[in-house]
């Protein structure tokens, strides 16, 4: 097939490959980031308490996009860079790849900046942003330079470590009021779709597959794991949203900036008064692989394009992240950049079906011309 399309597959030495099962952890870690901390308010803005349906819609959309991504990658055998080069040529394709690289950088920035904001508001109001960001980026640099396998391993640790946090949802359930969560579809389909769109920031991340696909040992076998990963994310979001909807009243939810962290406030143990502190600290384990994957993806593209050492790119991108984080020092701006990334991410997700269609047509035309 590669012969026909003229695009060479990317060959990665075996010691750098990951087994198909790990795709589950990579996809899941990339999807769950800061979005889950406060998505309840955003999605309820349009469709109110009916917006749990929107999560299912958005989830279904994610599964379709994931299927398209796999189909796209199977037929080309390479990554996004080779697909772009094959379809659009060296210059336009290269440009589009750079855009994707910048998009991943934006994702990393959004997650990092929002998390710093959370720490500032919830834990240390007098936090020295400079120092904290520098140390944080130091860890990220260390992990990313360690290579994709290292980051993957970290993803697995992160998923397993933070799984017990789900049990905390039991506390708000006991207090919540189910009486007002009645499955009457009051809102129209348009509202539900608007809510589904608002959910996208939380679901962003499966695009990374476009880059790390060549790193999977037996790509065919990883399909089911990737779908499991997306499904697991959808389940977690659904559970969190439903619990938030029974815990908060509809108007109250609009007043709460970080719904999920505020949920933790009701958790009461004899030995700890404020559980949200532990929750936020544990969340570092979710944030780090998330940023690492984004930075890795962002730097992998220039490496493929221009044959620059990835290490240098990581340093460059970390410096950009550092300065950008310090420049954006306002709650309003953090909110804006979240909105902006959500928008951009939505269009990147829409770009995959477009690419899928173009590639299908491209192959068809070429096949008929060959014969």
């Amino acid at each position, binding site marked *: 097939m590669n012969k026909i399309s003229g695009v060479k597959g990317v060959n990665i030495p075996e010691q750098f490959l990951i087994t198909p099962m790990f795709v589950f952890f990579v996809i899941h870690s990339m999807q769950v980031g800061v979005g889950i901390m406060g998505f309840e308010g955003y999605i309820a803005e349009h469709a109110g308490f009916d917006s749990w349906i929107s999560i299912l819609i958005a989830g279904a959309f994610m599964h379709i996009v994931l299927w398209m991504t796999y189909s796209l990658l199977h037929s080309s055998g390479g990554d996004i860079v080779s697909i772009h080069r094959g379809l659009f040529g060296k210059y336009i394709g290269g440009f589009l790849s750079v855009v994707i690289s910048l998009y991943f950088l934006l994702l990393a920035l959004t997650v990092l900046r929002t998390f710093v904001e959370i720490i500032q508001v*919830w834990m240390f109001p007098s936090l020295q942003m400079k120092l904290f960001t520098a140390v944080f980026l130091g860890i990220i640099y260390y992990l990313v330079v360690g290579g994709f396998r290292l980051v993957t391993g970290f993803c697995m640790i992160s998923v397993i470590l933070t799984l017990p946090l789900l049990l905390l949802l039991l506390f708000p359930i006991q207090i919540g009021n189910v009486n*007002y969560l009645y499955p*009457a579809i009051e809102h129209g389909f348009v509202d539900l779709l608007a809510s589904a769109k608002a959910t996208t920031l939380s679901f962003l991340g499966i695009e990374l597959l476009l880059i790390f696909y060549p790193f999977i040992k037996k790509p065919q076998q990883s399909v089911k794991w990737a779908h499991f990963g997306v499904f697991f994310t959808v389940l977690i979001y659904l559970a969190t949203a439903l619990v938030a909807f029974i815990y908060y009243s509809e108007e109250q939810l609009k*007043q709460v900036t970080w719904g999920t962290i505020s949920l933790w*406030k009701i958790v009461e143990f004899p030995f700890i008064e*404020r559980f949200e502190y532990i929750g936020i600290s544990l969340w570092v384990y979710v944030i780090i692989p998330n940023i690492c994957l984004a930075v890795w993806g962002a730097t992998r593209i220039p490496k493929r394009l221009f044959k620059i050492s990835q290490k240098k790119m990581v340093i460059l991108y970390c410096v950009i992240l550092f300065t950008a984080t310090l420049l954006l020092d306002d709650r309003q701006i953090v909110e804006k950049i979240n909105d902006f990334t959500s928008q951009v991410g939505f269009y990147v997700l829409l770009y995959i079906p477009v690419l899928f269609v173009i590639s299908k047509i491209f192959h068809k035309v070429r096949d008929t011309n060959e014969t």
Partner: protein
Amino acid sequence: MKRKGLLVLMLLFLTGCQEIYSVEDRAIVQILGYDYVDDKEVKGTVGIPHYGEEEKRTVEELNLTVTAQSIKEFTDKIEKESSKPISIGKLTVSLYDRELAENGLDEFLDVLSRDPRIGRNIHLGIVDGEVQEMIEAKYNQNETTARYVNSIIKNNSRRNFPRSNLHWFLYAYYAEGLDGYLPLLKKQNSHIKVTGIALFDKGTFVSTVEEDKVLILKLLKEKVEKGTASLPTEEKTGIEISDSNVKYRINTKGEVPEFNISLTITGFINEIQESSLDKEQTPELANKLEKDFAEYFKENSEELIAQFQENNTDPLGLGNLLKNRRQGFDKEKWEEQYPDVPVNVDVDVKITGIGISL
């Protein structure tokens, strides 16, 4: 390798650079109350426990009171009077006097809901009398006022009083078509007593539920697993409720929605005056008592709901229920309808036992 190890060590020790707060060096506010002074000013009182030497194990409470124009100014002023930095994270009770509540608690609620250091399970209370007096009074040798008030509210909400805390109050405060309520406290000599429930219309105190009807409100709001009531007849029959269940139904066919509340109560008799006791007729007597109690609960519920409607407060959340179960909820229209909306209460009492003696 050596340099890397050194770097890791340095990072480890860097954590020591964070400012350390020792418990002894902080003034930990556990109770905080406000009194109404005039339109512009409030008088705030805080209670800070002061732990004595270990052998004595005594707890003294330090009280500070200042008058300020806003809560922000109040915090600044309190800080000026305190020898240690103030910590608000352990706050367990916040009290407001009646007059302040009648003027609206919106500003205080905003501060409480905004501050990340304040827990969601703290208790709020309305004081019949002066808050400063209540906080400053000494009640028990080894218990601070904060703990005392906190345990009174907690203990009573396990029995006849409906549960309340900051989260539930905020839930109702923000929701459309739902109003909150808080316990009403009163200082009596050297005791504090919960005398009723203060009903709110959003942030404003509008009416009270008297002590004898508090259980009815609890029955209409939540599951009661421990509560006592007695018939107001001469025979003095008492029931101990062991389980209850409340269901709301709406009939939205007509122009005005109709609410049907069905209440199921299970309990056993814990007091019957001897004169009425007829050993031969126990089954019939139980049936009669079931009917009597059903009537009693029904009458009182209807009276209570009429009181809610009269005062334009909706602690049962009928509006919210309607909003969630019918399309196109019109808030203004509902507010007009609410005082006259028909609410039917249907009570079913089941007596499972009459104690261990006949």
